[in-house]
């Protein structure tokens, strides 16, 4: 599925690059107009009384609260806690999924043998594990990690399995007849083919990990931005709550941006990325 979107995105990028420059305003100006229009609409909603200002404060008030937050240590500590859970959870999930994915993917027997179990466990929503996490770990960071690792593991595992399945059979046979050991085959034959898939998996898992880090903080109360949001809400600091929500959104945008850049860097040698750059 992901491959489908990926390839169509790439096709779109190429199609756009070859098209003549569009008339009218440049794209970033139009984007800016969109943002300003959105903020203006938000500002007006409480003013004209479409919603009560105590439930949706005007945009200016929320942005002011966000600016105040940016100067507070407590805010950055919360951001740090969220990002810590995010980073550890993501790293654990990627490491486990990579190793298991390679071992399972390289053996046709294991692939068939584990298929039904993987297809059954994968769709189980990780929020179902929230009660278990609370029971086992309480409000400690481990609760968040359990949810993050469970959710991200499958995303990455599936991509690694697709990637290993994509390895060219002739290359594999050649490596075997040249007496490559198992580890050499993994490193020199499987890994390069699998890397684009792995990066896709990591990119998807990175945003899933943020969702679950915030979820765990909101619902369980492990430290981080989500906990601050629920504290602000129950404390009636509504503008502060919206400011924190904006902050989680910006965190999400930043994570998407960084993973896209990393993906491009790591795969700079790969035909799919090189093709995009030259087109």
């Amino acid at each position, binding site marked *: 599925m992901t491959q489908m979107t990926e390839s169509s*995105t790439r096709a779109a990028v190429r199609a756009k690059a070859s098209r003549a420059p569009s008339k009218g305003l440049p794209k970033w100006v139009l984007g*800016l107009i969109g943002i300003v229009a959105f903020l203006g609409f938000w500002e007006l909603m409480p003013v004209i009384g479409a919603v009560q200002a105590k439930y949706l404060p005007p945009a200016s008030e929320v942005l002011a609260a966000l600016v105040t937050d940016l100067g507070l240590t407590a805010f950055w500590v919360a951001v740090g806690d969220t990002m810590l859970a995010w980073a550890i959870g993501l790293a654990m999930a990627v490491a486990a999924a990579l190793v298991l994915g390679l071992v399972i993917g390289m053996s046709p027997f294991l692939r068939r043998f584990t298929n039904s179990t993987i297809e059954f466990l994968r769709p189980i929503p990780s929020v*179902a594990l*929230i009660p278990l996490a609370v029971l086992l770990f309480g409000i400690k960071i481990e609760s968040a990690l359990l949810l993050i690792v469970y959710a991200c593991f499958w995303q990455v595992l599936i991509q690694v399995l697709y990637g290993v399945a994509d390895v060219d059979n002739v290359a594999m046979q050649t490596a075997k007849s040249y007496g490559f050991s198992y580890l050499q085959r993994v490193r020199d034959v499987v890994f390069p083919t699998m890397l684009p898939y792995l990066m896709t998996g990591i990119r998807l898992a990175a945003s899933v990990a943020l969702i679950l880090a915030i*979820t765990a903080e909101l619902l369980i109360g492990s430290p981080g931005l989500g906990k601050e949001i629920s504290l602000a*809400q129950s404390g009636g600091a509504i503008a502060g*709550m*919206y400011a924190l929500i904006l902050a989680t959104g910006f965190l*999400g*945008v930043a994570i998407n941006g960084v993973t896209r850049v990393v993906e491009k860097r790591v795969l700079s040698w790969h035909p799919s990325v090189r093709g995009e750059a030259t087109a």
Partner: protein
Amino acid sequence: MKTLKSIGYLLGLPVILLAWWWLATSGEPNFFVPTPSRLVTTFVETWFGERMLTDVLPSIMRLVFGVLAAIVLGIALGLAVGLNRTLRAVTEPVFEFFRALPPPVLVPVLMLLVGINDGMKIAVIISGCIWPVLLNTIEGVRSIDPVQNETSRSYGITGFARIRYQILPSATPTIMAGVRQALSIGLILMVISEMFASSSGLGFTIVQFQRSFAVPEMWSGIVVLGLIGVALSFIFQWVQRRVLRWYHGLKEVENAV
């Protein structure tokens, strides 16, 4: 022999895992992990009764309503935005922000704006699920083969007919990828909205069990959520196979050449 072998592959690992679980718990009783037989009896006692009507079905109804509404709205809006290049550029940064916003933070917001009721829970599901569908529809419409667009124009296929017979079919593979994401987000949001603010529903019940340390009941609730997840994924795959039958056929032909 062949079918026997594939049955072995299908059930081999699950049977081994179940046996391991049974052996590991059959010795001294473990507080956190019930035995398989205990879990099965608890599962039947807990969920096949009044709770089915008061908690499980309303939750599933909200999920279905929310996801369907998000799909319809997402595709309609996505078509409108995707077909207009200016509108696309204007909305892109705002939409990208909403896509990156972790959907669970919408629960406290909608609690304030809508109040704590069924409408809030459906609104949470819609507002979380709409983004992948919307953005994938825009992407799908945008990346349509230009030759197709020009062919439509030369043949004078415009308006509804163009959307129905040219745009929607070519965008469907991308839209389906968005729908799949929407389904898993929807299930997450259904559970979260009930855990956060509710006095009924699956999420609420499971948290209630955990708070009263009713561990086997809690596990049985996790199993229910898992089964819903698996059922959704099967339904999705079935629908996708029907909707995209032509697409997979086309791919096979292309790959064969």
